């Protein structure tokens, strides 16, 4: 089963062998290619230089592009994310890292009041073409302040795109699109998919990635598995859980369609609604906090547009409204997983 997006601009496929890359490597390649292509692209963040970023996607860039364009920063997120806005206003295309999304509380103004409103404030003249990379997700016992997803926290606020790839192919193409986008893009990287040396990686995220540069459009969901009985909507890690669940369900005669949102803002409502119209059943899976989150937005979208398409109540599976506990038994109990998805689907049949 391929997770390759049908609508993506297809890169040249000639003269290349299959290469399975991690998301980290795919992002690295996209960034390097864009930095070669456009001297205005540069990087700022903590430990993105010689360390190659905690999330392993900037290795080698310092060596190739030098300290001017690969800038380790002080632990001053307000200053350097704010600086990205000013630099972008003057024609640069910064890629700037907020190491963990959990840290947004020290610098959100620069993101949502400055970057995201720069175009609006100035009738489109002060552009803010910048990419804010940030890591999300838990499941490895990193506790309350280093395991959050905060998807809705970003997607609720206007003026910025909010995206996350679920596999290396999308990662490369979406990063290329994000860098070329004239708007601020919050580019989330899921730790369980990323492929760093210190954490496991869901194998489904490691896929064949063309060497040539290509784009995957931002704002388009991807039907990563066709099905007829139930639609499972996810994002990042939960897409892979949905795919796993679909395999189990298939054995039971239940055909699940799996939708990878890929982008929370803009949100591809059409693709989701089309799928539910076909299957009549909807499960939304989210590792962010339950309330006022992605699951509600998807369900409200479908219900408001076409409540009749639903044969039964839709189901949400998300992290409960509690801080993310450290100890494994508690954290694992709260996270979405394949078992919960399968059970929800069964209950609908």
């Amino acid at each position, binding site marked *: 089963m391929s997770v390759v997006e049908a609508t993506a601009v297809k890169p040249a496929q000639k003269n290349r062998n299959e290469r399975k890359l991690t998301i980290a490597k795919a992002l690295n390649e996209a960034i390097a290619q864009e930095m070669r292509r456009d001297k*205005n692209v*540069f990087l700022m963040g903590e430990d993105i230089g010689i360390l190659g970023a905690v999330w392993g996607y900037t290795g080698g860039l310092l060596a190739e592009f030098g300290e*001017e*364009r690969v*800038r380790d*920063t*002080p632990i*001053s*997120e*307000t*200053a*350097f*994310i*704010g*600086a*990205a*806005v*000013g*630099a*972008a*206003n*003057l*024609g*640069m295309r*910064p890629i700037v890292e907020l190491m963990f999304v959990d840290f947004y509380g*020290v610098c959100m*103004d*620069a993101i949502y*009041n*400055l970057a995201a409103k720069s*175009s*609006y*404030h*100035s*009738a*489109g*003249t*002060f*552009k803010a073409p910048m990419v804010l990379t940030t890591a999300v997700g838990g499941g490895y016992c990193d506790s309350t302040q280093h395991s959050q997803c905060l998807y809705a926290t970003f997607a609720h606020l*206007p*003026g910025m*795109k909010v995206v996350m790839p679920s596999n290396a192919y999308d990662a490369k193409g979406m990063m290329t699109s994000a860098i070329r986008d*004239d*708007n601020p893009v919050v580019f989330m990287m899921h730790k369980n998919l990323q492929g760093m040396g210190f954490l496991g990686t869901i194998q489904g995220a490691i896929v064949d990635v063309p060497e040539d540069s290509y784009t995957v459009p931002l704002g388009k969901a991807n039907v990563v598995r066709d099905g007829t009985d139930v639609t499972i909507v996810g994002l990042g890690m939960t897409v892979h859980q949905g795919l796993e669940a679909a395999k189990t369900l298939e054995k039971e005669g239940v055909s699940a369609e799996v939708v990878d949102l890929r982008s929370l803002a803009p949100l591809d409502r059409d693709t989701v609604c089309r799928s539910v119209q076909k299957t009549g059943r909807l499960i939304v899976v989210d590792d962010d906090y339950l309330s006022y989150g992605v699951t509600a937005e998807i369900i409200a979208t479908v219900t408001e547009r076409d409540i009749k398409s639903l044969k039964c109540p839709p189901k949400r599976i998300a992290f409960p409204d509690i801080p993310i506990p450290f100890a494994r038994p508690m954290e694992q109990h709260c996270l979405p997983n394949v078992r919960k998805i399968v059970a929800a689907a069964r209950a609908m049949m």
Partner: protein
Amino acid sequence: MQPTPKQRLWMYEMMVKNRYNEARLSATYMEGKSPLFNMANGPLPGEMHLSDGQEPCAVGLGAHLTKDDYFACHHRSHAQALAKGVDLKRMTAEILGRKAGLSEGRAGHIHIFDYEVLFWSSGIIGQNMGPAVGAALARKMRGEAGIAIACIGEGGANQGGFHEAMNLAAVWKLPFICVIEDNQWAVSVPKSKSTAIASNADRAAAYGMPGERVISNDPDDIFAAVGRAVARARAGEGPSLLELQTVRLQGHFMGDPEVYRPKAEIAAKPEMDPIPRYRRKLIAAGVMTEIEADAIVARAHAEVDEAFAFARAAAEPAPEDAFDKVFV
């Protein structure tokens, strides 16, 4: 560094222009707001922060800047905008919420943006520091002319964003200047109750950069101090910090009864006004005559009047224009 006579006349003119502009904005603001004051009403709704008294900071800066210098300002930015060369007609139209405004009516008085002269603002205290540092970085990386300036109030110097940006500018040795306009009040809170030290210029030492405080609120003195900082920045010698003591002749925003302000200070407002003082000074120095001064005033007023005529005649945006320019 002394301003030339031409520069002094320019500074006088810009000060006068701002003052009259504030008076007209003030009058326009009050339209439709009596007998009951309601910020939402009238042709100029919303908040209104006037900069009467603080003009010397703006003109002392503006005299040194070119349109390639990125100027990140705050909520009280009219004087700086004028001194930076922002289009007055389009600025007035913006403040009045017209389609012909700088941002087509989307931003309003707290957010004066003019890309032509790289004027930028944010209403969140201290948050303009980062973007200015980033603009300075862009100039440096691209090897372009142009520096970056951020203006904050003395109240803003206690915001975390100030600290982070100052350090970052210093570590990267950027062509950046932070200007603190010390009008001694942050809304109702006096500097003595908000700031642990008397002079924010002393905070420059925390970043290994030069810091200077000017206390006279005199355009010439400010011109000189700014000149030193600008020269450093243009020469690639790194950032500077300036604190300019000034005076807020009005309430924090329009509608503020200033109950918190000592009576003596309110009474002393006329004598604290820097514009008549500068006028006398330039006349005494032979830079202009009374008649020439009046001509300058007349010219400035005419320009403001023209801007208001333009803005008031301009069309409002269509309701659905709201949906444009969210993304570029």
